[in-house]
């Protein structure tokens, strides 16, 4: 986190309209290497739209998203060629969906799911791909013996861990996560959060994590951005936003947490 380094990702006044329907409006932030930002807010607040804009799955109606490439040059995502964008999406970026079935290929084996991205960067040696995939299964606490099984046979928590392995195997610099622990049992959630926390720290990943769960944001993020009706209404250090919320809506969110 050297101070003189440029941000990895910059959103500048990003807006998205679906016809007359607002997705998100005028969102700006910078994300540096090794930083985790949590985007919190209720469903329909524009969180997922923002995530899709950040990885060029959607094109902004206004504003831009800038990304610093591995060669140090910061580029506007809209101005990248399709091939460049696809390459980034398969190597430099990870996208972890809430529904693991969206992020995995359910018809092929777990090992093939992890191996995909290695092949995308030109790996051809079957033995090496398989052993790297097995190493990643260890890392996300999936029994190697399950490497040839399809994710169809996996539990929800295992699928989510497999999705993480599939994304991280190519050593991405930016990982976007959409409610990665949503819909999982609490104990499974805790284990997954632990895993994510460890990987983020060890691999110095930059992460944008969308969640409606403030406890998840507290555990994983350095900074929080609160979204409501498509706009970022409050942002700051995670403990600042959660311990000293300023906006009425943020105060409502924070005060609505049920103590265990």
């Amino acid at each position, binding site marked *: 986190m050297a101070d003189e380094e440029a941000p990895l990702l910059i959103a500048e006044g990003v807006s998205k309209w679906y016809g007359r329907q607002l997705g998100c409006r005028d969102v700006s932030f910078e994300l540096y290497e090794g930083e985790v930002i949590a985007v919190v807010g209720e469903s329909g607040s524009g969180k997922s739209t923002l995530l899709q804009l950040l990885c060029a799955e959607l094109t902004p109606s206004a504003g831009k998203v800038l990304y610093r490439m591995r060669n140090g040059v910061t580029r506007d995502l809209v101005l990248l060629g399709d091939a460049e964008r696809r390459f980034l999406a398969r190597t430099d970026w990870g996208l972890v969906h809430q529904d693991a079935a969206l992020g995995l290929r359910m018809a092929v084996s777990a090992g093939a799911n992890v191996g995909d991205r290695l092949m995308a960067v030109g790996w051809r040696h079957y033995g090496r791909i398989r052993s790297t995939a097995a190493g990643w299964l260890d890392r996300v606490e999936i029994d190697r013996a399950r490497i040839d099984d399809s994710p169809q046979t996996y539990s929800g928590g295992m699928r989510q861990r497999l999705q993480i392995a599939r994304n991280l195997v190519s050593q991405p610099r930016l990982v976007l996560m959409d409610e990665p622990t949503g819909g999982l049992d609490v104990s499974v959630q*805790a284990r997954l959060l632990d895993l994510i926390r460890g990987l983020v*720290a060890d691999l110095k990943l930059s992460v944008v994590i969308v969640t409606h769960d403030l406890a998840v944001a507290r555990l994983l993020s350095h900074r929080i951005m609160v979204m409501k009706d498509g706009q970022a209404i409050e942002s700051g250090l995670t403990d600042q936003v959660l311990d*000293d919320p300023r906006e*009425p809506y943020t105060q409502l969110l924070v005060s609505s947490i049920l103590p265990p």
Partner: protein
Amino acid sequence: MTVALELREVAKTFIMHLQHGVQLPCVAGVSFAVHAGQCTVLAGPSGTGKSTILKMVFGSYRCDRGQIVVQHGGQRTDVARASPRQILGLRRDTIGYVSQFLRAVPRVPALDVVAEPLVAKGVAREEARELAGHLLGRLNIAPRLWALPPATFSGGEQQRVNIARSFLPDLPILLLDEPTASLDAANAADVIDLLAERKRRGTTIVAIEHDPDVRDRIADTVIDVTRFAAAA
């Protein structure tokens, strides 16, 4: 002597939007300076804003007015105006904070809870763990507990884990919110020894401490926070 930390005309009011926007003025006109290697104790009854002042210095609470100037890596940084990224840098390299209660992460062993800030500074994990074990030992946390998450520890044990975590990186400024409140006499004495040792090495300390004996033993200056009471 160098000033390590200075507050100038700091003020804080809480606005409770869910209670019809009622305003709770907390403190105003908070001004004091702490010299390097000195310990300032904030005194005064509960509810006068002592913890709020500490949290503003650490950046957990926003500061409405005034300046909080910290010597940081040869530079002066105003915490009240610092970006989140600057505050994260301050916390990594300059300011440590011992809260009243440990906020434990589920499933993380005590040893790693303590070692984590060192790892974040770039120390190798094994070395950080070894140093963490050494400090936990000094604070009488038995080695058999090191591999367990502190959530199940007693209040006093949790507080010592908390102290170890904040003391391990050897930061130049330490903020302590009732560090010995949940400790028995012997353990409190160990913490006081540790504090005295840090002061001799030049660490600057701001502490909240209700126990008059402890206060007398650690404080160079005592500030009565009631003088910063904000007019309601």
